[in-house]
């Protein structure tokens, strides 16, 4: 380990950057424990004169069933991830390791899919789901995201790097291709799976656009929608409660990232950044 003195410039620069990054969060935390009248002031006062944390957080949890939203968020993200793995992993394997007619076309389609943002198929999908009577539930929230081209892309890169001998040995053992995928290939690409899981969960936990359209009953709302509830038009915000709700909805993500950090970076590294 380098001596502290020579490490200081590095730490100093990093801390400066970190301060800029953290600035909005400092405000967020500070506002979440202040009463309305103290949040916007001309002077910088981080600690409230009147501690309002209990009121703000109870309002955030009580005015809407925020915990229920967190549960919905967790459930939906889990379902989406499961579906994505189910569809993408076999496909990625097929693209990476097998020869079959149409392989090139499928890969081109995958690349094309990467470029299409979620907003594009939104309206046609909404109408279709509505006609099928499937709105306002986990199906509607998860279905459009079931196939992730990003997953196919990432896993393909990772699988390509796996040695062919592994697969040949499994075939010699009499395993069918399907079994190979789930029992040999995926376990060997666990870091990639963690990395992808992080990307996926982060994207869908915070998704606002789609739940805003398909959710009609409060009970089914996701975390992002729950926070939006406190943000009314034109400063009608109950800022204290809004910030409290924001803190509550961000916390799980932060905790999860802290736990999965190392694996995540490992996973991204093996996902084909070596070409």
């Amino acid at each position, binding site marked *: 380990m380098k001596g502290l003195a020579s490490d200081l410039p590095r730490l100093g620069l990093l801390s400066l950057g970190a301060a800029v990054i953290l600035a909005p969060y400092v405000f967020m935390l500070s506002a979440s424990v202040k009463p309305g009248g*103290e*949040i916007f002031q001309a002077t910088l006062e981080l600690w409230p004169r009147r501690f309002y944390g209990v009121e703000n957080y109870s309002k955030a949890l009580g005015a809407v069933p925020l915990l229920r939203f967190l549960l919905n968020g967790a459930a939906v993200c889990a379902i989406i991830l499961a579906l994505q793995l189910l569809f993408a992993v076999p496909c990625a394997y097929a693209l990476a390791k097998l020869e079959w007619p149409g392989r090139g076309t499928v890969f081109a389609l995958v690349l094309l899919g990467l470029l299409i943002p979620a907003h594009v198929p939104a309206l046609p999908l909404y109408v279709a789901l509505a006609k099928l009577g499937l709105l306002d539930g986990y199906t509607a929230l998860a279905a459009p995201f079931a196939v992730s081209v990003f997953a196919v892309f990432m896993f393909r890169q990772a699988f390509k790097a796996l040695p062919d001998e592994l697969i040949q040995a499994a075939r010699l053992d009499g395993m069918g291709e399907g079994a190979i995928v789930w029992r040999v290939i995926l376990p060997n690409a666990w870091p990639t799976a963690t990395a992808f899981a992080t990307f996926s969960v982060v994207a869908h936990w915070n998704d606002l656009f789609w739940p805003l359209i398909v959710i009609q009953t409060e009970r089914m709302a996701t975390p992002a929608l729950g926070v939006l509830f406190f943000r*009314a038009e*034109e400063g009608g915000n109950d800022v204290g409660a809004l910030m409290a709700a924001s803190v509550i909805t961000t916390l799980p993500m932060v905790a999860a990232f802290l736990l999965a950090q190392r694996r995540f970076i490992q996973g991204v590294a093996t996902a084909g950044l070596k070409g």
Partner: protein
Amino acid sequence: MITRRLALGTALAAPFVRPARAAPTELVVHYPMPAFFKDVMDQVGQAFTRDNPETTVRFPAPSPTYEDALQLVLRQATAGGLPDVSFQGLNRLRFLAERNILADLGPFLAQDRDPAASGWTPSILGLAKVGGKQVGLTFSASNPVCYFNANLVKRAGGDPENFPKDWDGVLALAGKIAALGDGISSMHFRWPGDDWMFSALLYGYGGQMLTADEKQVAFGDAGLKALTLLDRMVKEGKMPPLTTDAAFQAFYAGKLGIIMGTTAYIGQFQRSAGPTVDLQTTRMPVITPGGKLPTGGNAVVMLTKDPARQAAAWQFMRFAAGPVGQTIMVRGTGYVPSNTLTLEDDRYLGAFYRENKLFRPAMEQIPIMQPWYAFPGSNGVRITQTIVDNLARIVEQRATPQEVLRDVTDEVQKLLPRA
């Protein structure tokens, strides 16, 4: 397989099976802006069910804004799943009515011998009429009022008890507030967002948005005066080009003196204003005698077409727009009641207005309220945005009132439905 024994058994059992009591009707009621209305709606729902036990009320997820509420109804009208009743912004009723989404309330009102006796005067009913058809019952109405921080007014040498009643006076005071320095801004006239406050100036000069046949833009002369007044707000009143959120935040921090906007802001101002702010309200400055003010707010509309549900829906709507519902609404927000009975009777709001000075100016301005204008055709929302964009040019001092008048007239004309 129906055996004889089974059939016999059922036949014998029949008289002993009690007829099931009719299940209560569940009314689905959709509303916008939960930050303003959630508590109000919950209370109205409970009070209604207490009086009408055979109907329960369910509120699906409320929409964040009037625009979202409109989109939701439009989407569900196409894809299915419409609620029975919804609350929509007054200026969007026309859009929905033109697409035959709203039920005609005429026959229901006719059951009421004398609407005025129930507290609904023709002018109140008129706010929710489109093309002569009654498509909604006004629920919450608002008009523009002038909010100020009495501390800043005093520091600038003004008298909060005698706040200027005309624009010359207000602009002069604003200029003095700006001169206080120390990061203090003078005023904010809520011009962003939509054309509502602009129409306040327009109507103040006795102008109209479109000609009577609604084919031509008619702001012309009054429009120029309105734009010039906005220009004066910047030049004389030193109004900075802030977003409305920034203006509110500065106001809460005691760094902005005057805000002109809807009376609906009262609730949040009371909650968020800091300790250095002495919040007071007063009527809008008079432009010309006989000038009018636009009415904001929303009305409750009926979406269900099923006659049985319609009856239940009507009962709810009457209740919400009736004295009890209106009292709950006013106490919970800064809006003005849409029912005259509430004002006269101490059981409802008679005492309320005596005790709560902040709410009075809006109430006093009720006689000069005029409906919120809705542009015909399908470009209504776009037209309001065009007006706002052009107002921004004046506020940022990038164009003169004459130039803006010419451009906005041109652009709005192009967006009107072609004959």
